[in-house]
C-alpha cells in the first residue's frame, strides 16, 4: 500500500482490477490503455486488447499514443480494419468496452456531442467516435469519468452513447443486443455500478479518504446508496511500481 499516488493512478488501478477476469476489451486512448496494460502485466496476461481501427491482441509493451497508431498492433496477431473490429463486437465477441464523456446520467447514458442545443451548442464536443458503437455492441461497458456535479446529471444534453436509456428493458426495446449495457463507472472519487432492478447508478465503493457524502455532493442526480458501501484499496506498491516503471516509464500519461 502507498499513499503517494495521483488520482489518475488510482483510477487506472481500479480499472485494471476490473479487468482481472476479462477476456477481451475494447480499448480507447488514455486511462483504458494504461489499465489494460497494467491488468495484462499483473493480473491477466491473456487479456486481449482490441482497438477500433484494426489492432487485435497487441502486446501493449509500448503505450500507444492514439487508437490507430502502430503500437495498437505492435506484435499483435491481427491488423485489420474498423468494420471487421466493429462487426466482431456486433457478433458479441467483445466483452468489455471503455467509455468517457462530458456528461453521464443515472442510466449510464453518455454525452460527447454537445452541451446545449444541437444546432446552436454552447460547447461542441468531438461527437460519438466509436463510443456509440462500443456502448451498443459490447457486453459490458465501463465509464471513466471525472466525478463532478455538472457531469453527473439527471438528464444529459444529448444521448451520444446508450446506457440503459430510460430504464429496464429500454435497450432491448430499442433493438440493442440483449443483456448488454453499462457495468461500472470509475471516477476520481468512487467505483459505481448499476442496480439490477431499476438500472440506475449505484455507489459500490469509495476511494480512500472519500466519504459517501462527498460522492453525493458531486453527483447531480439521486444515487442509490446500498446498505454496505465498500472501500477501494489504494494502489498497491506492486501496482504503482509496474505502472510507473513498466507500463508508462516515459510518463506519457501519468
Amino acid at each position, binding site marked *: 500500500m502507498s499513499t503517494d499516488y495521483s488520482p489518475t493512478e488510482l483510477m487506472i488501478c481500479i480499472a485494471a482490477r476490473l479487468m482481472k477476469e476479462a477476456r477481451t476489451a475494447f480499448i480507447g486512448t488514455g486511462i483504458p490503455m494504461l489499465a489494460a496494460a497494467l491488468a495484462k502485466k499483473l493480473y491477466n496476461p491473456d487479456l486481449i486488447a482490441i482497438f477500433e481501427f484494426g489492432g487485435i491482441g497487441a502486446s501493449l509493451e509500448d503505450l500507444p499514443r492514439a487508437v490507430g*497508431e502502430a503500437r495498437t498492433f505492435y506484435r499483435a496477431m491481427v491488423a485489420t480494419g474498423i468494420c471487421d473490429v466493429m462487426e466482431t463486437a456486433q457478433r458479441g465477441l467483445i466483452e468489455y468496452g471503455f467509455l468517457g464523456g462530458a456528461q453521464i446520467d443515472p442510466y449510464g447514458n453518455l454525452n460527447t456531442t454537445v452541451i446545449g442545443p444541437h444546432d*446552436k451548442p454552447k*460547447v461542441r464536443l468531438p*461527437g*460519438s*467516435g466509436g463510443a456509440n458503437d462500443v456502448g451498443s455492441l459490447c457486453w459490458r461497458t465501463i465509464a471513466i469519468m471525472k466525478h463532478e456535479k455538472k457531469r453527473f446529471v439527471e438528464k444529459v444534453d444529448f444521448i451520444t452513447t446508450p446506457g440503459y436509456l430510460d430504464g429496464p428493458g429500454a435497450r432491448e*426495446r*430499442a*433493438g440493442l443486443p440483449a443483456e448488454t449495457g453499462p457495468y461500472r463507472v470509475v471516477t476520481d472519487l468512487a467505483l459505481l455500478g448499476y442496480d439490477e432492478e431499476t438500472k440506475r447508478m449505484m455507489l459500490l465503493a469509495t476511494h480512500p479518504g472519500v466519504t459517501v457524502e462527498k460522492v453525493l455532493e458531486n453527483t447531480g442526480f439521486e444515487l442509490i446508496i446500498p446498505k454496505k458501501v465498500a472501500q477501494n484499496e489504494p494502489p498497491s506498491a506492486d501496482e504503482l511500481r509496474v505502472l510507473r516503471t513498466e507500463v508508462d516509464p516515459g510518463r506519457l*500519461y501519468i
Partner: protein
Amino acid sequence: MEIIESGQKELLQPPDVEEFRRWLRENKSPALRDKVMDEHEAVKRFIKDGDYIGVELYGTVRCPMSVIRELVRQGKKHLRFAGQGLLELDFPLAAGLVDAMDITYVGYEVMGLSHILRRAAESGRIKLVEWSNAAMSWRFKAAAMGVPFIPVRSMLGTDTLKYSSAKVVKDPFTGIHVTLLPALILDVGIIHVHRADKYGNAQIDGISGFAFEMARASKRLIISTEELISTEEIQRYPERTIIPWFLVDAVVVAPFGSHPGEMCYCYERDQEHLVEFLKASETEETTQQYLQKYVYGPKNHQEYLDLIGRDRLEALKRANKGR
C-alpha cells in the same frame, strides 16, 4: 418492415446507387494509364466546389495531409465532408471551405477538443449530421457494395440516431429492430498509402482502417503514396492490393505525406508540431497565422517538407521501430 423511427436530419448526400452505377460506367476507365501527377494537378482536376469529400485516416495515422494542404491552397468552396478526423478537417474548416459535415469525431483524443470545430459549430456556421465511427465506415461499406443501405445494431435508442438521417425498421426475419444506414457515396475520396504503382494499385501496411470501403465508395479517388513501386511488385503479391487501379484517378507521390501524423513501420508522428498547431488553433488569428505559414506559404509538398526540415523528418523516421 414498417419504419419505427427516422433520423430528423437531412441526407447530405443521397444514397442513389443507380446514379452511382451510371456515373461509374460513364466516367471510370479500367485502362492502364499512368496516373502519377503532383498534388496541384490532382486537386485541380478531381476536386470541385461543392463536392462531398471523404478522407481516410484514424487519429494522426496515415493522413493524406499533402493533398489536404493543396485543397486548402486552391480554396475549393462549399465543401461537405465525412467528418472523422483531425487536421485534415480542421484545415478546411478553418479556411472557411466547409458548409456541412456528417460528423462522427473531430478531435485530438487525449490532446483535447478541436478549437476550430468548436468555433465553426458554436457559431452555427456549419451544418452537422451525427453518426458513430462504425456507422460512417458501414455507410461506406454499403456504397462499396452498391446497395442503398446496410442494417446495423448501433445508434439505436440515442440522440445520435435522432440527429442523423438513419432509419429504424423491424427485421422481417427475426423481428428485432435494426438501424438502416444510408449508403455514403463520395464525390471524392482521398487516401494515403504506403506504396502504389503508377496505375494506382495500392498496398497498406498494418491496420487498414476504412480504406478498403472508402476507396470503393468514391466516384473520384486520389491516392497519395509514400513510395512508388513497380507493377511487377504488385503482380507478385496480388493479395496485398487493397485498392485496385480501376478505382483510382490520381497517384500523388508524397513521402512523409502524413506529416505531422505518422505512418506505421515508417515514421512517428511529429508531436512537437501537433502541439504547435493545437496551440495556434486556440484563436482565430493564430490559426490563420498557422495556415499562412504551413499551408498557404509553401507552394507544394516539397516546399512544405523543406520548411519542416530534413533533420526533423529523418529523426521521426529513426524513432520508428519497424516491424
